[in-house]
């Protein structure tokens, strides 16, 4: 049976208020970008010690969400699981938007964004041993593949969609592992340096992507008065539980490798230093422990409300995981010389949360939401009418 999809009407009061708010955030985005571009990055929290801040955190976070969304979409279009069909288009569309969001984050973070075209002059003006250059191939290919994939789905060419979808899922895995390698291959930063980092990134991408799809599906279906099939959410929740377990193992192995041998100062700093709360409360607590508990406990795992809370917790927790990598990873002073380094060179740096950087990040997130809402308005993303009826019809 074919499932019918429709656009949203966009006539309700809530929709208009949302559009006005998001439109205003576009203005905020342009303003905050221009402020940072004209005054320099001194208006942000980044420094010579912590060169990557909020924007890079959001960038790897969004890439993770995108890769996760695409991999979830494959359940519907590659593996042909009919339960997941109502969210198939949604997942692919979110994958594209989140990737575009990630690209905006990384472009804005550049000191000279107007020179970013150099990244795409493969083998001629760029250095192909740099992971940024390699990833730029991954990213452009990824966006192209996703657009073709979505187009094929819209056209209803399911055979081809399977082929492109399979390539796209493999590509999404490569994209996210490549992003993990940006950090994992940096040998002088103890917290970054780990061969398991790409896998950890992939698992974190899957957890956050699945959770975001649960959240977005519930929210959009609720707001557009569509009924979501509960079994869909519960099966995603079961999937989420397994991936969180794998993520837990990867994080544990990664930290154990760094803690076992005596050169563990930077990792100890991550676990007990200024940013212990980012690691323990966000990454471990909200990203792994709390949702794992909610999804395993017999009472809570059968309640849709608790599953949504677990998904929300993962979405926030994985953001904390990204922050716990980017910021403490560079904040800890590098051991230039054995002994205790005195003065500022030996002290861990603090990353201040500044107004312009935060508002810029929030406005880019709003921009992605705006594109998402516009997409729902003009593209046939959501299934028509009551999802339950659609499923029963099969």
């Amino acid at each position, binding site marked *: 049976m074919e499932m019918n999809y429709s656009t949203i009407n966009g006539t309700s009061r809530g929709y208009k208020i949302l559009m006005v708010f998001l439109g205003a955030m576009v203005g905020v985005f342009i303003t905050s970008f221009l402020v940072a571009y004209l005054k320099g990055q001194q208006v942000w929290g980044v420094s010579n*010690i912590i*060169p990557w801040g909020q924007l890079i955190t959001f960038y790897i976070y969004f890439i993770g969400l995108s890769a996760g969304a695409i991999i979830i979409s494959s359940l519907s279009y590659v593996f042909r699981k009919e339960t997941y069909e109502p969210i198939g288009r949604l997942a692919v569309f979110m994958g594209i938007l989140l990737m575009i969001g990630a690209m905006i984050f990384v472009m804005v973070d550049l000191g000279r964004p107007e020179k970013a075209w150099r990244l795409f002059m493969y083998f001629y003006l760029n250095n192909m041993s*740099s992971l940024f250059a390699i990833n730029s191939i991954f990213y452009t290919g990824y966006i192209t593949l996703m657009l073709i994939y979505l187009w094929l789905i819209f056209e209803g060419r399911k055979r081809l969609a399977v082929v492109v979808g399979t390539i796209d899922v493999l590509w999404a895995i490569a994209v996210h592992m490549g992003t993990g390698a940006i950090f994992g291959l940096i040998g002088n930063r103890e917290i*970054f340096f780990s061969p398991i980092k790409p896998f950890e990134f992939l698992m974190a991408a899957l957890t956050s992507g699945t959770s975001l799809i649960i959240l977005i599906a519930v929210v959009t279906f609720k707001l557009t008065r569509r009924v979501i099939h509960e079994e869909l959410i519960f099966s995603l929740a079961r999937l989420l539980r397994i991936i969180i377990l794998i993520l837990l193992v990867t994080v544990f192995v990664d930290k154990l490798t760094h803690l076992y041998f005596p050169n563990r100062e930077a990792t100890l700093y991550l676990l007990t230093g200024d940013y212990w709360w980012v690691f323990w409360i966000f990454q471990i607590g909200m990203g792994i422990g709390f949702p794992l508990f909610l999804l395993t406990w017999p009472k809570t795992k059968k309640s849709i409300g608790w599953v949504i809370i677990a998904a929300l917790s993962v979405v926030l927790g994985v953001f904390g995981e990204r922050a716990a990598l980017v910021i403490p990873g560079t904040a800890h002073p*590098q051991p230039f010389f054995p002994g205790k380094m005195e003065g*500022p*060179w030996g002290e861990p740096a603090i990353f201040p949360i500044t107004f312009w950087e935060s508002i810029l990040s929030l406005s880019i997130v709003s921009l992605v939401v705006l594109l998402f809402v516009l997409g729902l308005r003009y593209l046939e993303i959501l299934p028509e009418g009551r999802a339950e009826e659609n499923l029963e019809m099969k």
Partner: protein
Amino acid sequence: MVIDLDKCVGCQACVVACKEENNVPHGSPEEQRSRREIFWHKMIAVTRGKYPHFRIELLPMPCMQCDHPPCVTVCPAKATFRREDGIIMQSYRRCIGCKYCMVACPYGARSFNYKAQEGKPYHHQDEPPDRKSWEPWPFPTRTQGVVEKCTFCFHRIDQGLREGKKIGLEVVPACVEACPSQARTFGDLDDPQSPINKLLASRASFRLREELSTHPKVIYLSR
């Protein structure tokens, strides 16, 4: 470059000379607090033990000009590159400001221009006004939003080579020139007959973070 820690008195004249020569801006107190001051050459103090039985090492740290530079490997835009003579250079025209090199540098040698700096040549009133005479260094302009670093005063070296002077004896980087105790020696490490290699053969030496195999070309003689 060889730095003899036995002779070094820790006066930091090298730090000041570098700032002056390359017009590296002095950061405001706010910038120093937020760690945004640009340093091409820094000095770190490392202590061991407790008073009264303790020891301070003062280490002047320019860019180590590694033979296997991680910054060059990670730079996506070929903005940082290794010259034929081994100096690691940074091209401000190519740099896109992604700051990956700052993450990858094991010595913290790189700084980012967080704002447009004043370009006035405030320490060079004695220089002729014609900028062409300062070639090839486009002194003293700075670019906002790019990464910069120590260049081993390549402008002096290039000019010295053009004039046929002896590098390391008549022409040296500013930090070497400024050192009052002559703790620094500059020369050609490839030439086995050069004074720098004779000096290295005579004393115990070490490099910073040798375990990373970056092969720094700044070598310290231990105290």
